[in-house]
């Protein structure tokens, strides 16, 4: 992992802006997919409105830049603005559940779109360009943006990893498996979900800001497009829901498909839809889930490694602490007696 990170960090010295631009887009996709996965795979919240926070992130960066804030310092600020905007909307969205929550978040994203489209200083409906980076040479700008993106990617994945190893993350996993059971065991359900929602808004806001720094242009209809959420869903469902590695793998697969197939236009999108449906219905644990149930590999271990004396049942619940949610012991809050837990809580 460390070697890979170092290799990626030195890449701009070896490769040109073409490659780093593509990689930045890939990193953004990984961040986005990881955020959607945090919500759907852990907090049990299926949102179709995360594009709202992408747009808020992009436009916050634009606004900060217009008011004289440097572009790179403004990226984390834009992410924070996104999370701040998410807080009041969460109270509205959380009044809905399941599928209605999904559409409710979509409506909220539409409200952002409609409001931003009327702000003339931000280019209204036709969009605007980011000029704050024009002092840099294109090569320097591209390399800097790439490093910022890489740093945010590491922060996002590392943050999610630490979050899921924490008490809060354990609570989130429990909520995902059974909300009422988690609540009765003392998990603060709404508060935990709220934290996950705010982190997702933060991550998507950062991703949106990077997208603007990368492409230098923003328009409401593309920044707030529901297609972003469709891409996130595809990455997560293909890679593996409820795992940290899944969205990374899914994003790489998505990126490859996009590279090879996007010239086929709508057929390519139809294919994505078909694949997502098949994965949802037939292969819920995704590609990474398939790998881990066979091999017990885990790049980001966040669960309990279950070592039961009876080999047959150890085989069955290998990934432990309900990484896949389906076959793990029903009670993630307190492991049954006789199980050696490597990662102690309470």
């Amino acid at each position: 992992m460390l070697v890979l990170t170092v290799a990626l960090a030195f890449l701009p010295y070896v490769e040109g802006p073409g490659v780093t631009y593509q990689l930045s887009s890939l990193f953004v996709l990984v961040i986005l997919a990881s955020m959607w996965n945090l919500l759907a795979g852990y907090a049990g919240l299926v949102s179709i409105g995360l594009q709202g926070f992408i747009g808020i992130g992009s436009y916050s960066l634009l606004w900060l830049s217009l008011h004289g804030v440097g572009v790179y310092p403004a990226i984390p600020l834009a992410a924070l603005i996104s999370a701040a905007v998410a807080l009041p909307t969460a109270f509205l969205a959380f009044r809905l559940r399941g599928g209605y929550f999904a559409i409710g978040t979509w409506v909220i994203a539409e409200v952002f779109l409609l409001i931003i489209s009327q702000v003339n200083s931000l280019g209204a409906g036709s969009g605007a360009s980011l000029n704050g980076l024009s002092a840099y040479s294109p090569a320097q700008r591209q390399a800097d943006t790439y490093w910022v993106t890489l740093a945010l990617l590491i922060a996002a994945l590392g943050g999610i990893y630490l979050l899921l190893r924490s008490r809060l993350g354990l609570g989130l996993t429990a909520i995902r498996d059974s909300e009422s059971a988690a609540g009765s065991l003392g998990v603060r359900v709404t508060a935990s979900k709220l934290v996950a929602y705010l982190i997702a808004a933060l991550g998507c806001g950062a991703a949106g800001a990077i997208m603007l720094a990368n492409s230098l242009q923003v328009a409401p209809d593309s920044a707030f497009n529901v297609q972003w959420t469709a891409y996130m869903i595809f990455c997560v469902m293909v890679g593996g829901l409820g795992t940290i590695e899944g969205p990374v793998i899914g994003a790489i697969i998505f990126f490859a498909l996009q590279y090879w197939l996007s010239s086929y236009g709508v057929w390519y999108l139809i294919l994505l839809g078909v694949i997502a449906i098949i994965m949802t219905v037939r292969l819920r644990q995704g590609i990474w889930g398939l790998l881990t149930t066979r091999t017990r590999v885990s790049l980001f271990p966040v669960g309990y490694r279950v070592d039961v004396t009876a080999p047959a049942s150890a085989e069955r619940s290998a990934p432990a602490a309900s990484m896949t949610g389906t076959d793990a012991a029903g009670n993630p809050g307190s492991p049954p007696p006789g199980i050696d837990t490597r990662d102690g809580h309470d």
Partner: protein
Amino acid sequence: MIWVNTVLQGILLGGYYALFAAGLSLMFGVMRLVNLAHGDLAVLAAFGSVVLVDQAHLNAWATLIVVVPLMAVIGYLLQRYLLNLTVGVTPLASILVTFGLSIIISNALLQVFSADSRGLQAGNISIEAIGLGDGLAVGRFDVLVFGVAVVLLAGLQLFLSRTMTGRLMRACADDRQTASLMGINERHVYALATAVALATVAVAGILAGMRTQFTPTSGPMDLIFAFEAVVIGGLGSLWGTLAGGIVLGVAQTVGGQINSADQILAGHLVFLAVLAFRPRGLFGRVTVA
């Protein structure tokens, strides 16, 4: 006087939204399934009519006779062989599968019909108005659609409360396992519910297509308005859905009268206000679940 007219138009607009919302409400009520492809299926039905008008030279009204049963059959098969796989697992599965369907349908339509906007000709009725004196007038077609919405909702209510199939649907909605222990084939009952829902979706899609132009990508907006009507009215109440549609319609026309760019935004804001202050909806009998 202009405001009275605005509100009147909003009430009639509410008829459209209630028409769209009926199927969404039915599928959620029976199967707890939120169909995100709802709007795209309505657009699919409208394009079905376009094909019949273009190729078979049918009158747009006559296409209802073909498209509505066809959509019911599609609904049956869709539920029986795809959506039933997702019922009762987690909400996640049905949301993702219907969202995937939405993307497939809208892009397939885009491929076949291009992004051009299309319309359906309803004939003279769409330009005739009924004068109400004092300069007030309402479109004959809008009044007809409102009437269709009321009749359809009443019909659904009767269907669910009086017929055998309706009783089976309510039984499955109340307790799926007990219903199947009593010998009910829930997969068949669910498929029938979706068939009925898609028949109403077809009516809504075609009538809306006669009123305004549509494109392969107008589905999500139909879905969002239908959803807002359901939530404003309160889940679990068909008449609440009509009232919700009317509230949404009035909010939109009044918003549009104040500033023409704000029509849709005004509807969204009223929806959010209802969520904030009356989360059970204006007429809801159950909690928002």
